[in-house]
């Protein structure tokens, strides 16, 4: 029973701490963020499994890591020099189509690793690449040569309208009123539009979204 409550308390604490650390913590991690994530998981697990350890011995270090992580992230946000020290700098592995051997050696990346990363980015031929940059979070950014980059509308002198941002307005039968307000619509307006398509109750809609041209996409709940 003690373990049950300890687990709940520490779980809540770790969730709050991870939320406070920001979205990056669960996505692409900087080196210091990875260290913090590993340490927090270990620190939370110890007092859960060993009930002899006071809970504070788990809580204080977790809060200390939160302080250190948010502090370093704030410092790296405010100062370029601090960012370079804390997160490192991006490394150019291919520059103007030429592989930088010294940089590969320094980062201990072999050619196979480089080619693999490029293939992951959909570049099977190294000759197509102008720049390859290893970012500070370990991801590789690839910039293809002009002749190999995908065609864009600008190349064809076309000026299509922007796609806008489609917003969800019904999720599992529940109307998202704040999104509906963005389109200057009321629930009644929405119901009227859906009634024309054979829907008499908004709760019967599983999902509905609307784009900037007020085009409505919807799907009825199964079995209704």
């Amino acid at each position, binding site marked *: 029973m003690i373990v049950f409550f300890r687990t709940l308390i520490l779980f809540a604490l770790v969730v709050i701490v991870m939320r406070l650390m920001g979205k990056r913590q669960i996505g692409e991690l900087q080196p210091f963020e990875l260290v913090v994530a590993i340490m927090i998981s270990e620190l939370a697990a110890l007092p859960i499994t060993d*009930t*002899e*350890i*006071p*809970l*504070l*011995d788990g809580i*204080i270090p977790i*809060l*200390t890591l*939160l*302080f250190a992580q*948010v*502090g370093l992230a*704030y410092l790296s946000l405010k100062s370029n020099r601090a960012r370079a020290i804390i997160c490192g700098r991006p490394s150019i592995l291919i520059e103007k189509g030429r592989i930088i051997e010294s940089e590969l050696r320094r980062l201990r990346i072999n050619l196979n690793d480089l080619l693999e990363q490029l293939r992951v980015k959909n570049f099977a031929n190294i000759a197509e690449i102008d720049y390859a940059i290893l970012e500070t979070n370990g991801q590789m950014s690839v910039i293809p040569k002009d002749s190999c980059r995908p065609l864009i509308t600008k190349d064809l002198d076309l000026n299509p309208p922007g796609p806008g941002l489609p917003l969800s307005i019904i999720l599992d039968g529940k109307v998202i009123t704040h999104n509906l307000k963005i389109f200057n619509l009321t629930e009644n307006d929405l119901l009227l539009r859906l009634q024309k398509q054979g829907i008499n109750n908004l709760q019967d809609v599983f999902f509905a979204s609307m784009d900037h041209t007020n085009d409505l996409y919807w799907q009825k709940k199964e079995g209704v």
Partner: protein
Amino acid sequence: MTLHKLLVPITLMALLLFLISLGWGMIIILEKSATTLLVSTEEVRSLVSNSNWSEAEKAFQKVEVKWSHTREYWPLLIHHQEIDRIEECFGKIKSYLAHQDSSNTLAEIYVLISYIQHIPENKRLNLQNIF
């Protein structure tokens, strides 16, 4: 607007202050309660040394009362094994006192004193404890 910009550093400073005061508070609480226990235990030790058994038993009962208060909040601050060791000591001393076994009582009182002294020493902020 300015306050919004300063929200992160202010919160960080508040968190830092909270953590430092929590740590410092823990040390102070442990030092105070350990000193109270040690003074009373020393009294028992001197009474046992003088073979004043009836007074020693009374003095030990007072130590037990103080310990029962201390025992309520020490589990929040220190490893529970340390508390178990002290409890074990208390049991032994009580039994030795009842049998007026001076050598064993004194030996166990010294063990108890070292256990109690060890607790705040272990939490004190110094280089030995950090490394």
